[in-house]
């Protein structure tokens, strides 16, 4: 594999993952662990593929794929934000159901190699999307330091105090989870439309990436700028394993190379969250905790 191609592939995958990490950072800052992002990615990929084939236009595919990512987030919002059900189990439920839906949608159109999102050239598209992902990180970093960011963080830290100060917890959590769902849909759509990332859509194409994103988010310390670096790093890992196999430098089987991102996600999660995090920075205190008041009005 040529070095330049490898760099472009890493940037492609990296920028896709950055969007996912940003979505997860936003929802986790408001206290919602969006495990349904796996469903958003699967649905986004299938919808983008089906729409691109059907309309013969990858921009429409990108738009519809991104939009469809919100559906799994809605289930999470209904059951875990408005109702008091365990958001981890709800997230996995949502992912499983919408993964099945994604198989149905992906098979509605014939299996054809769809168009790629190529604006003037492959390189230009990759650099452009990479720049957009970096700018999104910077934007989220700035937003989190504004008044709205303070509100989001306060909801994730102590929702009861935030509620007593007049903040509508459900609205903030809903908005951040919807945004996370959008970004999940974008991740799925880009996984199928981005140049140099994947070929034709198949069942289980995006399998597991959503869960990996959730696992590595704590390693970003919920900072969008560190999240961007982490995205590039994970993109590097996913393509490095392929590069190692093809170059023959290290005798590693396909299966062992495929488990590297998962292994790294577990390692980073346990190491950063468990060993270092408590000393460096505290996680949002109300993370994965449902907010239930005995009675509420909206």
């Amino acid at each position, binding site marked *: 594999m040529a070095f330049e191609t490898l760099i472009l592939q890493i940037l492609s995958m990296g920028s896709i993952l950055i969007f996912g990490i940003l979505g997860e950072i936003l929802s986790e800052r408001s206290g919602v662990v969006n495990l349904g992002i796996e469903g958003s990615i699967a649905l986004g990929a299938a919808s983008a593929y089906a729409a691109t084939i059907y309309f013969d236009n990858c921009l429409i595919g990108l738009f519809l794929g991104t939009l469809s990512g919100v559906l799994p987030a809605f289930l999470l919002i209904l059951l875990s934000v408005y*109702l008091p059900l365990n958001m981890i189990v709800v997230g*996995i439920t949502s992912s499983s159901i919408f993964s099945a839906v994604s198989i149905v949608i992906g098979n509605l159109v014939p299996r054809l190699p769809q168009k790629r999102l190529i604006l003037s050239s492959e390189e230009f598209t990759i650099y452009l999307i990479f720049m957009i992902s970096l700018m999104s990180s910077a934007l989220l970093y700035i937003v989190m330091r504004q008044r709205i960011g303070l509100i989001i963080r306060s909801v994730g830290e102590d929702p009861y105090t935030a509620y007593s100060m007049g903040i509508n917890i459900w609205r903030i959590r809903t908005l951040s989870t919807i945004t996370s769902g959008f970004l999940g849909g974008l991740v799925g759509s880009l996984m199928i439309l981005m140049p140099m990332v994947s070929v034709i859509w198949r069942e289980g194409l995006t399998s597991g990436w959503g*869960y990996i994103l959730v696992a590595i988010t704590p390693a970003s310390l919920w900072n969008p700028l560190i999240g961007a670096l982490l995205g590039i790093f994970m993109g590097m890992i996913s393509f490095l394993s392929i590069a190692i196999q093809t170059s023959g430098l290290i005798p590693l089987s396909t299966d062992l190379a495929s*488990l590297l991102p998962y292994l790294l996600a577990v390692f980073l999660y346990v190491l950063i969250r468990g060993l270092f995090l408590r000393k460096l920075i505290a996680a949002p205190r109300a993370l994965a905790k449902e907010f239930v008041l005995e009675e*509420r009005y909206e």
Partner: protein
Amino acid sequence: MNSIYVRRKSDEPSTVKIIIISLVIFTIIVFLGVFSLMLLSGYELKDLINIFFDYRNLLSPITIRYSIVIALLSLAFLINVAGGFINLGGEGLIALSMLAFLIASVYNLGIFTAFVLSILLLILWASIPYISKVYLESSDVLISFLQNFIALFIINHIVTHVFRGELARPRSPPIDPSINLHYISQDNILYNYLGRVSIESIIVLLVAVVFLTYLLSRTKIGYSLRLLSYSTKTASISGVNIPRTIFLNLLMSAILISFASAELLLGGERKIFYNENAKIGIGSMSFGLGYVSLSIAILSIRKPYISLLYSYILALGYMMVFSSYGFYRLILGVAIVGLSLLSVLLSELLLRYEVRLNWRLKH
């Protein structure tokens, strides 16, 4: 003004209420969900009805076999849940247990050593998320879930490069006939119902139901597990030996998972297959039973014997999956996990919470 009223009920629902509500919710959610997905995919309504309402499935030996496997697994996860460990790594644990049987078969170690090896392997593997949760406050759900993929890729590597049975296809050699369980003979009157399940599994299941019901509600170990699930700090202050409680929890669940895996492997094709892309669900050797069993475990946490009923219902759900074919089987296999989890969640909501929705127009 629109209002939502949510309150946790103080009293524990009765067994009859749990059974009725969860049965109704399961039927509505799973059937409606599966019906809509299959119809959307172009399945004929007539075929769908034939699959779902086939009365022969009710007492078929395969339904009973899967009921017993699911029940064994759900009791294993129930012990974990009782100790505060939400173990979503069931798929990986089943695969690793099968690997232990394969190793014992390749090196002629016998059935007893195979079980010991399996139990040790499972304790080590499951201790990673459990210990991380107790001591490092990490998410056990997330770590155990990611472990599934790691375990499945490791198994794939092993059946491709280490213990490859056939050159044409990556799969393990067949398990040695010396490693076997005992089955009811064809002369026996019960053969038509229990012919596909081993005697050992039936005995272990019955003993486990009685033992766990007693252990969790009446003994000091049950009390320690409940304390640990509530808070590590509280358990520690109350004098609970945390490492010992964790070990006992993992040991008991490992024994039950080993029997369930033995049933799946030794009562089936006796080979471990290559699982492309480490698929979880119907594409795996354990058909996604690791997930559905956890949902049963969460629902029957206070009454272990209820898991027998839920296991039977889910086994019927799986018969639907096995009756369908190709592409539809794939959709059903993925959907049934999410739908059964959703039915469990909604049953929890109805049983333990009071929810009132008042829709009024804003003035």
